[in-house]
């Protein structure tokens, strides 16, 4: 009976989502390469494109960290809802604020 209870306890242990070491080091190398890329790109004058390009690289780095270091790729759907909604509300905040500032009749 005790053995049976013990088995049950084991069965209820957290499911093992153990990621491989190669994945962690691969993501680390990708983040370092992207850091060098963002510095390299900033040394070239691309006019109005410099900032959007820097932001795109930063977003790619953030997505890598969120999916792999923060394990969202193997998380429950409920976790995905929370993560996506956080950025959705952030987008709402930016869009509505700039919808105001960029459409005023006088220079901002």
């Amino acid at each position, binding site marked *: 009976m005790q053995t049976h209870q013990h088995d049950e*306890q084991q069965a209820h242990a957290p499911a093992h989502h153990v990621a491989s070491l190669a994945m962690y080091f691969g993501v680390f190398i990708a983040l370092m390469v992207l850091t060098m890329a963002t510095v390299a790109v900033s040394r070239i004058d691309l006019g109005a494109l410099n900032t959007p390009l820097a932001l795109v690289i930063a977003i790619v780095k953030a997505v890598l960290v969120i999916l792999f270091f923060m394990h969202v790729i193997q998380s429950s759907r409920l976790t995905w809802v929370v993560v996506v909604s956080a950025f959705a509300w952030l987008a709402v905040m930016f869009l509505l604020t700039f919808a105001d500032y960029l459409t005023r009749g006088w220079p901002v």
Partner: protein
Amino acid sequence: MTTLETDAHEEHHHPFLQHHFEDLQQQHEASTLGMWVFVAQEILFFGGLFLAYAVYRAMFPEAWSAGAEHQDWMIGAANTAVLIGSSLTMALAVWAAQMNRRMLTVWMLVATLVLGSVFVGVKGFEYYEHVHHGLFPGTHFTYVHEADPALTPGVQLFMTFYFAMTGLHALHMVVGAGLLIWFIWRAWRGHFGPEYYGPVEIMGLYWHFVDIVWIFLFPLLYLIH
């Protein structure tokens, strides 16, 4: 085998399973989700500062470029590498706990603490340099932009955002360092293992979030033309 594991086998109840949860799986899911709700709040908390930065940068683009000239991009890039390295060691600490490797968990957390401390130390050196050059906003702001003195107030505004954003970020790093010291002690005591690594995972969520904030701060404060 640690004493904690022995207790667990005798009582058929993990010592860190809280009574209001059915089992460790449910406890792990709930705590991870709860931490993500906190991180979502943090995203919007920092988001307000990023939004204000964006609005004022749209208003004063020349002043932002002039202000960014005072940031040393090489120090910023090196510190970015240090922080990404600390995220790797933090992720490896979670892995080590899942693999039941107690001392590796301890050492990976120690490495995270050391790298985080290096980051904050370098930030402190940068602050010292800015203050020395009269770039700290307020009554100590003695800097004048030589090429176009009219840009000086805008540069002060940029430096206000610089200190507010990197300061709030550094505050999060210091809080994280304090948490790491507590976690190193817990890991050393053998609290974590394949059945119970949730707290290390949650510590990681916080640490990686702070890393992500810096991933955006670095190009926005150091790499503007």
